């Protein structure tokens, strides 16, 4: 289900960008919140960061740990990692999609080119922010975090000029 969840969430994210112009994507809401482009960059950066962590931990001989409710970790991550807006500059929709594809197919895919979902569940690491966590749960974090920001994008869309 891990891959199905990753795919389903990514398709939803791409669908959420449908019909938005480059100007829409780069418009910051007046309340100082992030633009949709910045949200997308944050999603990409998070995916890359988590993948690098998982790739570093893969060769270790760490054992299995209990599955965790990853959704509970998102607020913790957001309050810690997302204090500063991503330095995105003006990015076109094509450039944003390219970033999403790079983080997905160049980074995340490299995890699955090395191992299986079942092996990820058998390994764990001591994460600075999350504590003991399985590598599978870390990959779960990617799609749950993306889902969180799809909601964020939908909220931001409401503030865009018609």
């Amino acid at each position, binding site marked *: 289900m891990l*891959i199905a969840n990753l*795919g389903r969430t990514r398709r939803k994210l791409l669908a959420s960008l449908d019909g938005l112009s480059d100007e829409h994507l780069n418009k910051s809401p007046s309340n100082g919140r992030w633009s949709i482009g910045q949200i997308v960059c944050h999603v990409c950066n998070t995916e890359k960061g988590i993948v690098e962590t998982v790739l570093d931990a893969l060769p270790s001989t760490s054992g299995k740990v209990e599955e965790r409710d990853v959704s509970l970790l998102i607020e913790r991550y957001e309050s810690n990692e997302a204090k500063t807006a991503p330095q995105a500059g003006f990015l076109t929709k094509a450039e944003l999609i390219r970033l999403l594809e790079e983080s997905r*197919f160049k980074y995340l*895919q490299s995890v699955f080119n090395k191992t299986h979902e079942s092996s990820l569940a058998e390994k764990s690491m001591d994460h600075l922010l999350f504590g003991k966590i399985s590598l599978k749960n870390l990959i779960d974090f990617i799609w749950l975090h993306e889902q969180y920001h799809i909601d964020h994008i939908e909220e931001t869309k409401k503030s865009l000029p018609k």
Partner: protein
Amino acid sequence: MQEQFTAHLAMKFTPEWSRQEKKEKITAVQEVVSIFDSYEDKVGLRGTYVVQGFQGHTDVMLWMFGDRFEDIQDLQLAIRRSTFGKYIETPHAFTGITKPFEFSEHPTSFAVGMVPRRYLCFYPFIRTPEYYLLPKWERKALIGDHGDIGHEFVPDILTNGVYGFGLGDYEWLLTFETNDLGRLVDCVRKLRESKSRLYMQDEHPFIVGRYFELEDGLSQYV
């Protein structure tokens, strides 16, 4: 990994098709679109690929996927029974299933949410019996080497490998997707240097096509 069935259906128009009135052809295409609409929640269509100019045996290929093979087959039967179905032959049909590969998960690009590219290059293949008798470490090294070559072309070339064992004449069904045919040529050429090629028994037909939405793709032949 959640298993899904895939179907690559290659179609060729009969000479009768070109003798039909344009109006009838448009209606026939719309009937196919309606059939896909009625299967919207059961069968996904990755793309409609116009093969004109690449291979003569096929005019258009549909790449479908779904959780249940029955749904894919029922949809194909509905097409065969439709007006459109009267004017097509199916020179090739390939059914596969997504499963983790032996040494890694290697999910298909559509499973991880990558959008389709402008071109598809599909081919089925069979490895030699000797390959399957190699020690596991040697097969792993061969596949690893092959994968490293391919990874050089990511994300310009998306890969979709599925199992075909027992579902047809072939063991593996591979689909590349790209926006750049030049990169595709570079990739396939470079993969010829992989030692795993020594264990390739058969890999044809190649089917290459340009991506279209369903109605647009079929309408190229109206």
